[in-house]
């Protein structure tokens, strides 16, 4: 339990934080009026807060360390991959999928339009997360400019509607394809780059796309954005706003299922395994005869394709887009979804998107402390669960003595 030693340590940590936060938390100056405001109460709050939090932090750290010490082999599979284990048993899997689908389907009937609306947004990010997961999680290419493809999709719909009056259902595949083309365009020059150099170039690419949209007014209407984009039609029936939002929600559910299906198939395909191989060891991969160029380009373009699709839906949902929606922060959020959920794991990405997109919404009761809490939670989640909420499972082939015949196991 809490020993005296612990308390003493926390006491010193609390003193440290009092010192650390002293100028920012306690003093507030007005350099014009030449007044200084001393807020000593804040110091007390910091001291008490730091004391308690440091106790909790260390307790959690010990728990985490204790866990990782004794669970390297056996428990880790039983504990953190519980969901994955369930998913490998067909009977459980069907039940889980069934429950999830039913929940998803009845949601708009039970909850308010607001809940449906933010759920739609969360689903949008599931698609984005799954798309980025191809690039980052599977192929191991760190992409910090993923939002560029999202923007391409959104602007494809907005501008094709604006200039040519094209409808949602025609633009939807076009947006995806155009984004994929952009993915290849970005991919070709940067293939030689590795790791973080690739990251910063993709970041630059994302910024370039946004800046062009912002500055090339004749083409994209500049910073004021494109408004009055129509929502998707349903056989030409005119819908009220509520119905339209619910309709988009169901569309989104369908897209998510479709995406999961495709991504799952991709993951287990020849291409998917090539991606994972590329992520693990590029040179060995080349030696095995995998075409590095083609494999990487495939990852970029397929990842971009989903972002494009999501962009078209985003434009249709909000009916208004402007370059402000496609800043670097957006890329960072999508990346966080992938990492937080557990890189390479589909179910992880879904959970990650739900957590990261719904969390700020449900933190609204904290009003101005909302984003503060969000940042802190992001740090804590990474510190206490660095592998993500659901770590991805490697497909393992165990050698089973009893059936030496074909050597294929679970």
């Amino acid at each position, binding site marked *: 339990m809490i020993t005296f030693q612990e308390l003493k340590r926390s006491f010193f940590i609390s003193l440290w934080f009092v010192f650390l936060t002293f100028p920012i938390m306690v003093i507030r100056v*007005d350099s*014009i009026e030449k007044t200084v*405001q001393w807020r000593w109460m804040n110091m007390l709050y910091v001291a008490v807060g730091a004391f308690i939090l440091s106790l909790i932090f260390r307790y959690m750290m010990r728990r985490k360390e204790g866990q990782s010490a004794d669970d390297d082999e056996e428990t880790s599979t039983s504990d953190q991959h519980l969901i994955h284990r369930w998913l490998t048993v067909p009977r459980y899997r069907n039940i889980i999928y069934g429950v999830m689908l039913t929940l998803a389907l009845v949601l708009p009937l*039970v*909850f*308010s*339009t*607001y*809940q*449906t*609306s*933010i759920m739609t*947004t969360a689903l949008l990010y599931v698609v984005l997360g799954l798309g980025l997961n191809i690039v980052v999680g599977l192929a191991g290419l760190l992409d910090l400019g993923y939002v560029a493809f999202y923007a391409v999709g959104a602007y494809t719909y907005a501008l094709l509607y604006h200039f040519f009056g094209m409808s949602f259902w025609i633009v939807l595949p076009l947006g995806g394809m155009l984004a994929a083309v952009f993915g290849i365009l970005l991919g070709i020059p940067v293939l030689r780059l590795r790791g973080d150099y690739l990251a910063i170039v993709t970041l630059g690419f994302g910024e370039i796309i946004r800046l062009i949209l*912002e*500055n090339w*007014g004749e083409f994209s209407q*500049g*910073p*004021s*954005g494109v*408004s*009055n984009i129509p929502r998707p039609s349903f056989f030409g029936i005119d819908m*009220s*706003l*509520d119905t339209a*939002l619910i309709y988009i929600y169901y569309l989104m559910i369908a897209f998510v299922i479709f995406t999961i299906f495709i991504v799952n198939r991709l993951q287990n395909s020849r291409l998917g395994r090539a991606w994972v191989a590329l992520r693990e060891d590029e040179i060995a991969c080349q030696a095995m005869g995998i075409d590095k160029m083609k494999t990487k380009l495939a990852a970029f373009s397929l990842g971009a394709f989903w972002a494009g699709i999501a962009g078209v839906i*985003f434009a249709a*949902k*909000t*009916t*208004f*887009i*402007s370059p*402000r*929606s496609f800043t670097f922060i957006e890329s960072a959020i999508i990346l966080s979804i992938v990492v937080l959920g557990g890189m390479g794991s589909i179910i992880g990405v879904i959970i990650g998107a739900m957590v990261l997109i719904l969390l700020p*919404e449900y933190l*609204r009761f904290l*009003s*101005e402390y*909302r*984003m503060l809490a969000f940042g802190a939670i992001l740090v804590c989640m990474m510190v206490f669960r660095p592998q993500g909420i659901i770590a991805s499972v490697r497909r393992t082939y165990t050698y089973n003595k009893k059936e030496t015949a074909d050597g294929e196991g679970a």
Partner: protein
Amino acid sequence: MSMSLNRKIVAAAAGLMLAIAVPVAGVAADTLKMGVVGPHSGDLASYGLPSVNAAKILVEQINAAGGINGKQIELLIEDTVCDAKTATDVATKLVSDGAQFVLGGICSGSTKAALPIYLDAGILVMSPSATNPGLTQSGDYPNFFRTIAPDDAQAQLDVDFAIDKMGYKKIAVVHDKGDYGKGFAEFAKMFIEKNGNAEVVLFEGVTPGAVDYSAIVQKIKQSGAETVMFGGYHPEASKIVTMMKKKRLDASFISDDGVKDITFIKVAGEFAEGAYASGPMDTSSNPLSKAAVEAHKKEFGSDPGAFYENAYSAVLAMANAVKVAGSTDLEALKKALQTEKVDTPVGTISFDERGDAIGVGFSVYQVQNGTFVELK
């Protein structure tokens, strides 16, 4: 009328939905719910938070005085981060939460995205700062009002001032690439070209938040402009005027009401001297304006920030409209807003049928000895 029929259906649908989803909502029917939306975090928070303060101060006063028609006002403060996606989600949330009128939409873009949702629910929206002309002039958003002049009106005023009054022949138009700033700059450019007595020697955008503006200042110097007309907000404006003086560039500086903010003078200090900015007429001598600023100092211990007075006025106007109309029905509120005159910090105002404020007289101010002085 198809309009009213539509609304009935909506009302029925909303009622049905409320009955299913929020059975407790009926309990709070004796309060008025006012939404306050805007960026309360992120890079634009400094434009959104002052409106929250204005709403808090006024609502406290109104509630202490017995509320409006005996009903207390309840604030629903929601952060939109000026992001279109969040703004639409917030709008559906406010509709679900039963907001009856909304202060805000700080940025034109996210306001545009959210307005159809409010319109569908018959909710009045009044913005202290969304200046995009299309918001009122397009006629798409009949529920939208604002206590600030649209970009084009201000640009016209500033251009007339620069050319007819000051006689400038060469004007550099600079903007901050933002929705507001670029909109203003484009109108300014158009009006200068229409006027014909002066030419635009430079039309460029600067990157907000950049660490140094000396290159653009050198370029202005090179263009030989006699004056710089700037569209944007005060942080960039103070950086530019500071850099202009430091680089010994003698051109004058004319800007919009995003700059006519006390923070501009505070931040730019001596470098702000002589700069022009357009803004609502006679605010400093207006007793209501003084009272508003005093109330802020008392409550929050600091000077109010950007659009505080516009937000203050918007709350006063809406409160008055609710009082006169006796309900929060959109048509009744609109009628009250268009017919009743209200005394506010930005002047005695009512609204035209498009939603723009009448009586927010605009004039050009100059910074003299650390304050904005109105030029007659």
